[in-house]
């Protein structure tokens, strides 16, 4: 039994590793797709001496074959060295880690908002049904369709410029001030995630509520709250966790839009400015982190599934 579990975990981990490997080859290879001479395209309008061109070519591994260039790049990346930014002339790794504080807090803040409000709305609407459920369905349909840049400008116009409750730009200083500054951006980012979670949660809760074991527990005289806590919420946890896993990666990329809208200096706004300036080392570094985050989080969620929901089986056997 333990051996089967170990084999299953090993297989999942291997699959994840293969995905990251293939994705990293794609990310590295994108530079070679640049039409014409990549180095000249990357240099943009900047005038370069032949020595500088040669140095750039070497730093991208363009003076070597694809495989050699890739191995050098990924080898450096494994040692946490993502190269040097063309625009800032500093290490990409330090550039990203310096901005991770704002973006990380923003992601956690918005994920918390989405999970708390999403599951609350899902549970209440599934239990109450009727009119409450219908209102929740409409709210969910609207929120899932609201692009974050639309919610961002709506929130800016109403709460920041109109009512003056929250600042329009900047990340603030000190913990309390920072949370206050990040409230509107986090809300803008959380709106879609909230809708998706509420929708999936509602479906999961409604399905569990209709099951026989819930009916049986009720007829045994268990109180409503206990039935919901023990029999409904526990079983509905698995599908919601899967969605939360998927949300993290999309929130990471979502910071690009929201940080731009609110003038925050984070990883997302760095990605946007690097894309428009064709600062390749930075773009490749952030893309690599995003893919890694997606694969790791989703693999962990997958691996956690049999422990959360005993009905999920491992290789045909239940745990």
């Amino acid at each position, binding site marked *: 039994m333990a051996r089967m579990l170990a084999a299953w975990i090993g297989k999942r981990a291997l*699959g994840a590793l293969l995905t990251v490997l293939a994705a990293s080859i794609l990310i590295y290879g994108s530079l070679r797709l640049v039409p014409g001479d990549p180095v000249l395209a990357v240099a943009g309008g900047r005038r370069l001496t032949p020595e500088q061109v040669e140095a750039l070519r070497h730093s991208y591994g363009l003076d070597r074959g694809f495989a050699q260039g890739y191995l050098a790049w990924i080898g450096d990346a494994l040692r946490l060295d993502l190269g040097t930014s063309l625009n800032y002339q500093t290490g990409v790794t330090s550039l990203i880690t310096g901005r991770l504080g704002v973006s990380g807090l923003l992601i956690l803040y918005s994920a918390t908002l989405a999970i708390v409000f999403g599951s609350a709305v899902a549970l209440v609407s599934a239990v109450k049904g009727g009119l409450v459920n219908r209102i929740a369905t409409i709210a969910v*349909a609207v929120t899932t369709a609201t692009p974050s840049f639309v919610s961002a*400008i709506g929130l800016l116009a109403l709460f920041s*410029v109109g009512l003056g409750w929250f600042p329009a730009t900047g990340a603030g200083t000190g913990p309390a001030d920072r949370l206050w500054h990040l409230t509107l951006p986090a809300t803008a980012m959380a709106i879609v995630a909230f809708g998706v979670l509420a929708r999936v949660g509602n479906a999961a809760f409604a399905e569990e509520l209709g099951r026989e074991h819930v009916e049986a527990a009720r007829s045994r005289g268990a109180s409503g709250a206990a039935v919901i806590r023990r029999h409904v919420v526990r079983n509905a946890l698995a599908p919601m966790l899967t969605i939360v896993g998927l949300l993290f990666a*999309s929130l990471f990329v979502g910071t*690009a*839009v929201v940080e*731009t809208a609110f003038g925050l200096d984070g990883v997302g706004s760095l990605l946007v400015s690097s894309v428009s300036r064709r600062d390749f080392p930075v773009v490749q570094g952030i893309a690599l982190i995003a*893919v890694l985050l*997606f694969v790791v989080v989703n693999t962990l969620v997958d691996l956690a599934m049999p422990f959360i929901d005993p009905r999920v089986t491992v290789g045909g056997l239940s745990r």
Partner: protein
Amino acid sequence: MTLTIPALRARSARRRRRRPLIVSLAVAFLVLIAVTGLLAPVLAPHSPDATSLLNSLLPPGTEGYWLGTDSTGRDVLSRIMYGARLSLLAPLGVVLLSGVLGITIGLLAARAGGWADAVISRGMDIVFAFPSLLLAMLVVAVFGPGLTAPICALAVSYTPFVGRVVRSVALQEGARPYMESYRVMGFGELWVTLRHLLPNVMPVLIAQSALAFGYALVDLASLSYLGLGVRPPDADWGSMISQARSAILQGEPWSGLLPGLVVLLTVVSVNVLGEHLGGSIGRKQSEGV
């Protein structure tokens, strides 16, 4: 956001028994937007690029400028009408491309099976690991701003979204007795697939495509909002919102909020339609048609 939610289809199937009012409203709105985009040169009251500093930032409801003007005095209504063209055509391109790719790959995986299926499924996992907006930004970094490269990138990004569903329906359908009987009758594999399997896959494909259209519209508008999509003088709704930024901070948000509202309503309509189509398919299958 690219999330496939199986539970959603099951639930919609239960909920929708006849065509609800909301679906008709959604279709009406989409037709309205498409027609105003198509007939923009006839219907638009002003040229979308005519600036007039005397008339800048007029509020909605001003005579002659019913939705107001932006910070350079351009008519917001006319710009929304003209903006509809790129805002709708670009995601349509994504959906058509990803539909063709998804059908090909999904059918191939289901019919070939074995290692071809394994390779295709692994490939779809890899594509799935790139959030669609990230992939779009990556190709903008490679090819420079513009819409062509992001359209192709998003088409690839949404291929698993279509391909997985096509594959599973094709597997289900391929196992039915009538498929076997065609084969016994001596019809070629390709003919059976195209003539008999493809029509059965179409309804699911259309429902998935409607949802993908909404996602692609949001991705492309986000890209334009970030200044990485359409290049001036072309304009779509995303770039209109981007240009309204300073006006919003000045307390004149209308030239940004109105195109934002149009994006929102369009995506809601497309989602409602997609879920309705997906729901009716779920019902048909559960009734064993």
